[in-house]
């Protein structure tokens, strides 16, 4: 009798826990999602009404496209997009070549210098020369104020390389041996056997690099002086952090009194424009992202 009583009690406690856990998850999702929703609503709101609004913003205030229209007139945003795409395309190409090469060589067995090479490479994950010597190095290489100053230092990410190496190492050795007997060169083995069989890992690593390029701003800030070369994130920084909306909002267009209010909505609109590409693809690719973390969890 006592035993059944006990069992019921436990299940009751567990049911209460489940309910609270469910409620907690709902709250968590709201907290995670609300800021983005707020931005969406604010960007479509009427500037004056928005500035008077207090509390949560659940729906656009008096739907208006003014902010987007103003932004479309600004050449810097489009230019920033262009620069970011340039960095993304060339950076990604370089990333994939370098990462595949390193991962392929380091995943081969019976290669005498692989241990030494691995130590040389992994050591850089834990120790670096520091910000200033790195900066001086780039300047000495003559890369200042070129987009290559942003691309080349990030040519390979050691973490991503390890993820890739783990993926490559999972391809059965027998396939490579068979190809070698048929006279295939190393590069051919990589290109025709290893890469086609590791598509999932390659997709994951590719996405990691792409997101990193899209979101990066620090190196661009350090090395680029010409505004025409600024990637999108650096333009965003001027607008969001330095609060410089003057270049975005021409008082002639909106009336002097409204300029500062409109500046506020333009801020939200540029956030949307910069985040939308990621938000659009995110639901479809997020499971690949998580897969990468799990592969990377296998220690180097």
């Amino acid at each position, binding site marked *: 009798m006592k035993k059944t009583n006990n069992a019921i009690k436990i299940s009751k406690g567990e049911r209460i826990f489940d309910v609270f*856990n469910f409620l907690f998850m709902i709250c*968590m999702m709201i907290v995670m999602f609300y800021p*983005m929703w707020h931005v969406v609503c604010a960007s479509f709101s009427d500037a004056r009404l928005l500035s008077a609004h207090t509390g949560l913003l659940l729906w656009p205030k008096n739907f208006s496209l003014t902010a987007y229209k103003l932004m479309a007139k600004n050449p810097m945003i489009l230019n920033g997009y262009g620069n970011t795409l340039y960095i993304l395309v060339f950076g990604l190409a370089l990333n994939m070549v370098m990462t595949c090469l390193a991962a392929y060589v380091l995943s081969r067995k019976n290669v005498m210098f692989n241990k030494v*090479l691995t130590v040389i*490479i992994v050591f850089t994950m834990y120790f670096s020369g520091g*910000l200033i010597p790195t900066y001086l190095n780039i300047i000495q290489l003559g890369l200042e104020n070129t987009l290559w100053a942003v691309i080349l230092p990030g040519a390979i990410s050691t973490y991503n390389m390890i993820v890739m190496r783990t993926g490559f190492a999972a391809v059965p050795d027998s396939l490579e041996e068979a190809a070698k007997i048929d006279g295939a060169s190393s590069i051919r083995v990589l290109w025709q056997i290893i890469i086609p069989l590791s598509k999932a890992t390659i997709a994951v690593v590719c996405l990691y690099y792409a997101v990193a390029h899209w979101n990066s701003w620090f190196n661009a800030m350090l090395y680029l002086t010409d505004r025409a070369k600024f990637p999108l994130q650096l333009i*965003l920084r001027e607008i969001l952090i330095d609060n410089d909306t003057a270049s975005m909002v021409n008082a002639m267009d909106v009336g002097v009194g409204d300029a500062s209010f409109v500046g506020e909505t333009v801020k939200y609109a540029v956030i949307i424009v910069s985040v939308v590409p990621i938000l659009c693809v995110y639901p479809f690719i997020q499971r690949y992202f998580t897969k990468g973390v799990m592969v990377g969890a296998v220690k180097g």
Partner: protein
Amino acid sequence: MLKLSNGAAADDKLSFKNRLKSDIRRNYPLYILILPVLAYYLIFCYKPMYGALIAFKEYRPDLGVFGSPWVGFYQFKRFFANPDFVRILRNTLTISISSIVFGFPAPIILALLFNELKMPKFKSVAQTISYLPHFISLVVVCGLVKTFVSQGGIIYQLVTLIGDKKVGLLSRPECFVPIYVLSDIWQQIGWSSIIYIAALSAIDQELYEAARIDGANKWKRVIHVTLPGIAPTIIIMFILRMGSLLSVGYEKIILLYNPLIYETSDVILSYNYRVGLEQQDWSYSSAVGLLNSAINFLMIIVMNKLSATFSDTSLW
């Protein structure tokens, strides 16, 4: 005895030479393939390490790293004697330790809670939404933080319900650490939980059955089955976290701070950035950066050693 070992050594040497020869004959295409990668690491990682030598010199761009005169530990002494030193070190440790105390357990708890969810569909939606902030750029996150905590922003309104209404929260020194830590948790909690979720899914379900039969309730099963099951992952993540004890996310600090709140927000690396790139005090800032790298490296070695000794879990 001596002779024997000598003989063995000679034998080894010979076989090493032979091994080397056959290895190069067999694997030279691989060594050629990795050359560009090696070149990258030498030029972009090891050359700056050599460049860090200017921390012990008085760097003059016209003389280069090699030609600049040595000054020993002069730059380091300057840093220790600097009136800002105590403030910077205190801020770095405060922010870092608060991030560890609040930010490190958060994703573990979230993973445990995900693990207890019964509805698979709801679970995957909740997980997907929790990862989302990780993909938003730092510039945008800081822009959001700035908008929400400045006057009229939603968090400002919430806080001023109980606190006083004077200036935006980012102009109040006492608010910086909570803003930094909480926004960090917001952005990373979901993403960081993935690795623990992976570890949780690897726990043998039979252990839970056995515990249940032995009469363990949910809480006891978490303590005695779940936590020991993910302990190696927790330890590895903790070692890595301790290795960046002094590397507080300075990019974020540079985006968020302003001279009004340097008192609580200026850390070693943001200071390093300012004296290096804004005041161009090359040698001094290199010394600050090198000290930071060296301590971090030491931390990771010590933590790894401790972990290997006490728990058989280690990074390498």
